[in-house]
């Protein structure tokens, strides 16, 4: 991946390299120039020193020559020899120097003049003892030559001194150039830094700003939105691609949520319809029952209607709760060794009247022997019942529904085949999703929330089985196939159920605690009708007072009471009465954790509202858990 860092690294490296190269060159150039100038300065110093020394020596020699007429010889010979030797030595030193061309020309002339002076000097020494005009003429010539040699030495000194001035001027010029170069380097550096900043802004900041703007648009729900730069090979490209994938998923999730919301609204609409449907006949039946002129047959039919519709409402609520529990993994199977054939046969018989009423033929094909499985009989019956109910719902009158059960490869295969409306291929994979129904028009006429097959799939899969829907297409009927694992061996015969515990029969004193007056009174009437003595309280303190005033045998207590909850009532009663009191929780909170909480609070049993009358009667007739434990022991 070409990272942003690497993209910036190249220009940064190039600029740094250029800057380092410039600085290195400037340093090398300065050092080289310094060495050159130092060498030149040394040469200048040496040459000037020698030229001045030669000038001094020449003056010294001339002084001795010119003083010859006035001074005795001998003394000056030594001084002249010394001066001459010194001059010769200095001349050798000068000739050892690397002389520029101009200086070399001057030096050659000086050497020639000096040679002529040496010859003249010998002549002067020769005529010096005689003195007179020859000596004076010789000394005059000596002076003329000295003028020349002195001028030539001045030329040498002048050249080097001016060269030194040029060195100073050059140094000043170079220092000025160095200052300009430094200033230019600073400016270039600032421009480079600015350019890098712009580059970084283009490479990093702008893409990030674009991503931020897109995020803001997404926050304003302006989907879909994609950011540019996904094709880049660097970190920005990685971020852009991840961002676009995220927005893609958000789009998908948004679409799913929209669909779910739509289906929720659709479900609520159906639920409202399904709930309202039973209420209408219930209301009509109640109106009939309240009529004083109602005949017994009408009264009986009205009660049957109310019972059926209450059952239907109960099933709707149970199905909803079951679907929720399955989705949350909260449902518990009460497995036992059962004969699947027997469950299929019994369930089919339960639905035969329903199908007969719709003029749909029901055929049951079972194997000769049992199909043993470790399963929850209630849930298996619920599964088969849902399949039969579904088949009856989507098969027109005159059609046929066939139930087959057999074993294959260690698994029980239960098929429900109908000659109904069938399913289009695109629906086969979705038919087990909640709230999905095949033919809306027919489903609506037959009622239901579309939860049945979802429950079937959930329960079958909890048992370790599979369910599959098959159909040749619309109008070609459907086949629902369930496979459940069979048990490995035949079951051990169950022990005969124990006799009903003693003391459980006969009328009982019952205390009903419920803040819903209608619920409490109707339940009280039901139990009084069964021969029990019933008291009613509508809150926790009232229940405790009633229990102290007239201790009951059984307390049927709601959980959701005002002020003091049913749990607190149960704990108080259990403290006061001990295990001999039968406490039964009757509540709409019927999740497993609600049942556990009830048992933990001291209740002996938990009944989900609305309880079936037979459930209530059995619960009231049962002994408390403490008594049952004693009997079992």
């Amino acid at each position, binding site marked *: 991946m070409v990272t942003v860092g690497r993209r910036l690294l190249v220009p940064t490296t190039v600029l740094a390299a250029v800057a380092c190269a410039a600085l290195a060159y400037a340093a090398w150039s300065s050092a080289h120039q310094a060495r050159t100038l130092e060498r030149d300065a040394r040469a200048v110093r040496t040459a000037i020193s020698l030229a001045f020394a030669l000038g001094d020596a020449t003056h010294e020699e001339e002084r001795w020559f010119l003083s010859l007429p006035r001074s005795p010889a001998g003394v000056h010979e030594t001084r002249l020899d010394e001066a001459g030797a010194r001059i010769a030595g200095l001349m050798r030193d000068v000739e050892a120097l690397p002389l*520029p061309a*101009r200086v070399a020309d001057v030096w050659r002339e000086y050497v020639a003049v000096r040679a002529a002076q040496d010859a003249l000097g010998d002549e002067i020494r020769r005529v010096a003892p005689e003195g007179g005009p020859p000596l004076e003429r010789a000394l005059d010539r000596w002076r003329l030559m000295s003028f020349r040699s002195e*001028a030539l030495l*001045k030329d040498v000194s002048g050249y080097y*001194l001016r060269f030194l001035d040029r060195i100073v001027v050059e140094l000043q010029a170079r220092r000025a150039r160095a200052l300009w170069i430094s200033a230019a380097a600073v400016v270039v550096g600032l421009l480079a830094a600015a350019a890098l900043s712009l580059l970084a802004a283009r490479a990093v900041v702008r893409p990030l700003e674009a991503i931020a703007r897109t995020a803001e648009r997404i926050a304003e729900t302006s989907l879909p939105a994609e950011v540019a730069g996904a094709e880049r090979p660097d970190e920005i490209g990685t971020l852009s691609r991840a961002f676009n994938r995220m927005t893609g998923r958000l789009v998908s999730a948004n679409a799913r949520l929209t669909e779910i919301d739509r289906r929720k609204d659709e479900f609520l609409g159906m639920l409202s319809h399904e709930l309202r449907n039973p209420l209408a006949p219930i209301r009509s039946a109640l109106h009939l029952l309240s009529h004083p002129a109602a005949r017994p047959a009408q009264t009986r039919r009205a009660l049957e209607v109310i019972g059926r519709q209450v059952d239907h409402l109960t099933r709707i609520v149970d199905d909803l709760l079951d679907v929720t529990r399955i989705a949350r993994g909260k449902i518990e199977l009460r497995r036992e060794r059962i004969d699947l054939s027997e469950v299929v046969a019994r369930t089919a018989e339960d639905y035969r009247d329903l199908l007969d009423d719709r003029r749909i033929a029901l055929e049951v094909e079972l194997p000769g022997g049992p199909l043993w499985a470790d399963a929850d009989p209630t849930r298996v019956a619920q599964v088969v019942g849902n399949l039969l109910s579904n088949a009856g719902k989507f098969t027109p009158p005159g059609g046929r529904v066939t139930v087959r059960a057999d074993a294959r490869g260690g698994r029980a295969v239960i098929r429900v085949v109908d000659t109904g409306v069938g399913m289009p291929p695109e629906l086969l994979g979705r038919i087990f999703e909640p709230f999905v129904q095949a033919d809306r028009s027919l489903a609506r006429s037959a009622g239901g929330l579309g939860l049945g097959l979802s429950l079937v799939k959930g329960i079958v899969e909890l048992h370790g089985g599979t369910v599959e829907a098959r159909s040749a297409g619309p109008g070609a009927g459907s086949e629902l196939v369930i496979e459940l694992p069979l048990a490995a061996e035949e079951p051990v015969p169950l022990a005969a159920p124990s006799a009903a515990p003693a003391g459980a029969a006969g009328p009982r004193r019952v205390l009903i605690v419920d803040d819903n007056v209608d619920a409490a009174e109707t339940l009280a009437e039901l139990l009084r009708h069964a021969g029990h003595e019933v008291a009613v309280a509508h809150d926790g303190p009232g229940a405790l007072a009633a229990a102290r005033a007239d201790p009951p045998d059984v307390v049927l207590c709601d959980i959701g009471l005002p002020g003091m909850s049913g749990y607190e009532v149960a704990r108080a009663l259990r403290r006061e009465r001990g295990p001999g009191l039968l406490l039964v929780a009757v509540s709409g909170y019927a999740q497993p954790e609600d049942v556990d909480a009830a048992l933990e609070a001291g209740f002996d049993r938990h009944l989900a509202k609305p309880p079936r009358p037979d459930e209530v009667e059995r619960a009231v007739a049962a002994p408390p858990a403490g008594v049952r434990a004693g009997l079992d022991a």
Partner: protein
Amino acid sequence: MRVASLIAAMALLAACGDRRPPRTRLVLASVRQPATALPLLAAASGCFAAEGLDLEERSFDLGRDALALLREGGADVAVAFETPVLQAAYADDRLRALTALHTSTRNTRLVVRASSGIRGFYDLGGRRIGLAPGTNADFFTDLALRLGGVPRDLVRLVHGAPAESIEGLAAGALDAAVLSDPAAQEAERRLGDDAQVFQTDLYVEISLLVTRDDVLAARPAALRALLRGLACGERRARADREGARARIRDRFPETGDAALAGQLERVRWGLGLDNVLVDVLRRERDALTAAGALRGDAPDLHQLVAPALLEQVAPESVMLLPGDARW
């Protein structure tokens, strides 16, 4: 109308296309001698054209005449030997010496009739010596007499032009004459076997490029270009002496090849301002003053010698001692 527009457009294009700098015109008054032919060589070598200079030359036989034209304003620069420059500087403090053009120790010499019996400078006492007054022949004569130890008043100096001195020698009216080339060569030719020459390396003659102070102030760029052109000519001369002689050959038709070669052998062309020049000017000034040839206030040599332009063009050629701000 269209033709006029076309012509105007072409003229504009031509003007825009002509990138050459405008040429500068300078008038040079020079002495017609091989020793002072460096400007001739530079011109013939294209050195002045390369500097954008149009150099108009006015040629004279004597340096004092060239300097006279400069002083009159008829020339911007002049070439002359150091003696007439010194004399002109006595009369006109506007003169400025920009550079030396040549040095020679043998160009001016004492041509002697061998039959006169003169064996050296020391034999000049009582002799008739011809020389052109107010020229470097004066300085040579002074030096020769000093070297020979002959007082000046013991010598009969016959003033006259070089041609008169040649005739005098040939006729025997003169024992010797101080002459410079080509006159010295002509005298030697006329005397033939009777010719004898005495010279000294202590004598240095220098030709100078001189201008006026007003020209120096107003046209420094043109004068720098002239100096650069002369430096170019010097480089050509050093690189190819034979070629240099060939380039100036046509300017001296009266001089044979051998004679021209002999004269150029005694000359060293080159730009420069050094202490030898100052020494020569100083001693010549003193000698001419002692000889009565110069009257009035002696010229300030620091004012006469102006090294600033030469230092810009060829700094290594300026060897005057610094430290004195006027140099």
